[in-house]
């Protein structure tokens, strides 16, 4: 597997440099304020637009507005798993430490987003179907995704050796990635098998444009927010893992002094 790294052309220096935790730490300090500002602005726009200005739904009234949080959260939860798995794969193939740190940082963020999606789904379910929890295909898939995240996190913390923890979690994340389409399709099929009489969730393309636009804005905002959260968490992870090196010690003493 390490031979793959020989295929990297030498002018991809930025890729190799990105592999240095110290470089990433210092560079991300410059990106962070702009990203945070962008995330804040986009989220604020989306929220205000969706919660206040978008038209009411014919059947559900105002309660449908929770989708402006539910759908982006669900989207990011799924994407977040793939991001985590890709980070793990990069770490396994190119043996980059920073990749493993990103993978570890991505896990709790993704799990939290999955939980938010489930929670907002329940909040939406009460006025719509009269029950907080309904076993429909999407919610069940979300729940299984939460378990997949929990597995990766549990494996990370089970190992004392950081190297073993990283590699094992990366392998598990990849196994989970292969399984996610299988699980989603199986659960979809299972749901159609039993066909309880409930209202189908509004699917995005059949929504009216006036409702759809703020949703798009919210999705972009959530992506930006995810990026900020991931960078912050990765920076913490870098400090934690590199705490014995001289540059981190200098950073700590400089902070303490000033």
């Amino acid at each position, binding site marked *: 597997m*390490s031979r793959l790294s020989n295929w990297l052309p030498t002018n991809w220096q930025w890729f190799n440099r990105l592999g240095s935790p110290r470089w990433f730490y210092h560079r991300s300090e410059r990106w962070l304020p702009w990203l945070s500002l962008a995330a804040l602005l986009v989220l604020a726009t989306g929220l205000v637009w969706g919660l206040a200005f978008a038209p009411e739904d014919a059947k559900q009234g105002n309660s449908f507005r929770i989708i402006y949080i539910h759908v982006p959260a669900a989207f990011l939860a799924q994407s977040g798993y793939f991001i985590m798995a890709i980070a793990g794969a990069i770490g396994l193939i190119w043996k980059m430490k920073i990749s493993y740190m990103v993978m570890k940082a991505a896990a709790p963020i993704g799990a939290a987003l999955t939980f938010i999606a489930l929670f907002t789904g329940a909040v939406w379910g009460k006025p719509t179907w009269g029950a907080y929890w309904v076993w429909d295909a999407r919610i069940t898939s979300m729940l299984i995704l939460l378990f997949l995240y929990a597995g990766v996190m549990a494996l990370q913390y089970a190992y004392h*050796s*950081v*190297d073993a923890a990283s590699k094992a979690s990366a392998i598990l994340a990849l196994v989970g990635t292969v399984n996610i389409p299988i699980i989603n399709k199986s659960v979809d099929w299972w749901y159609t098998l039993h066909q309880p009489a409930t209202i189908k969730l509004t699917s995005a393309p059949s929504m009216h444009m006036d409702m759809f636009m703020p949703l798009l804005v919210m999705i972009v905002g959530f992506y930006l927010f995810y990026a900020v959260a991931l960078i912050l968490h990765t920076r913490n992870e870098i400090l934690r*893992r*590199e705490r*014995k*090196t*001289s*540059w981190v010690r200098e950073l700590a003493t400089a902070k303490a002094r000033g």
Partner: protein
Amino acid sequence: MLQAPLLSVENLAFERDDSCLFSAVSFAVDSGEILQIEGANGSGKTTLLRLLTGFLEPSVGAIAYLGRAISKCRYDYLSDMLYIGHQPAVKLNLSAEENLRWMVATAAQSNDISIVDALTQVGLAGYSDIPCYALSAGQHRRVALARLLISNARLWYLDEPFTSIDKQGVEFLQSCLQQHVARGGAVVLSTHQDLELTNLRKHRLLPAVERVS
């Protein structure tokens, strides 16, 4: 033409969890030689042997078998190698004979010596039918050592092979090693024991320099 040594190690270093176990280890072993790895407890003797077997991957450095990197000739290298680690890999629920039979079945090459003969030579003559949970740790070690008699491999990697065995066993093992290198094989072993062998070289494993970043 100078033939490449059986095993050559260049500038080997191993790092785990940001601490460097050892670095800049280089040596070569040719057929007919015994290399004893010495070092304090925790200096990485077991890790070095595991690196030689390909079980672990080095952080820096190259290991070559007959001049070729072991990652490129894995099958040939592993077929020509015998490794006995800390644990003797003896299943407690099987008898000594069954254990040895399985070890031979999974090995690449073997001598014509029969399993019963091998067990007799290591001093487990009457014990071939008894399950191994009834045997002592020293007897388990002897079952593992019986592999040495059956195997045809040229390179032997032995991690603390003298633990748990008595004086008779020590003498037997030393004569075994001597015969093996006389036939053209090579041995790399780690032990604290003082060996009385000809063709013996020692390599001292030093702790690594502190990592500066």
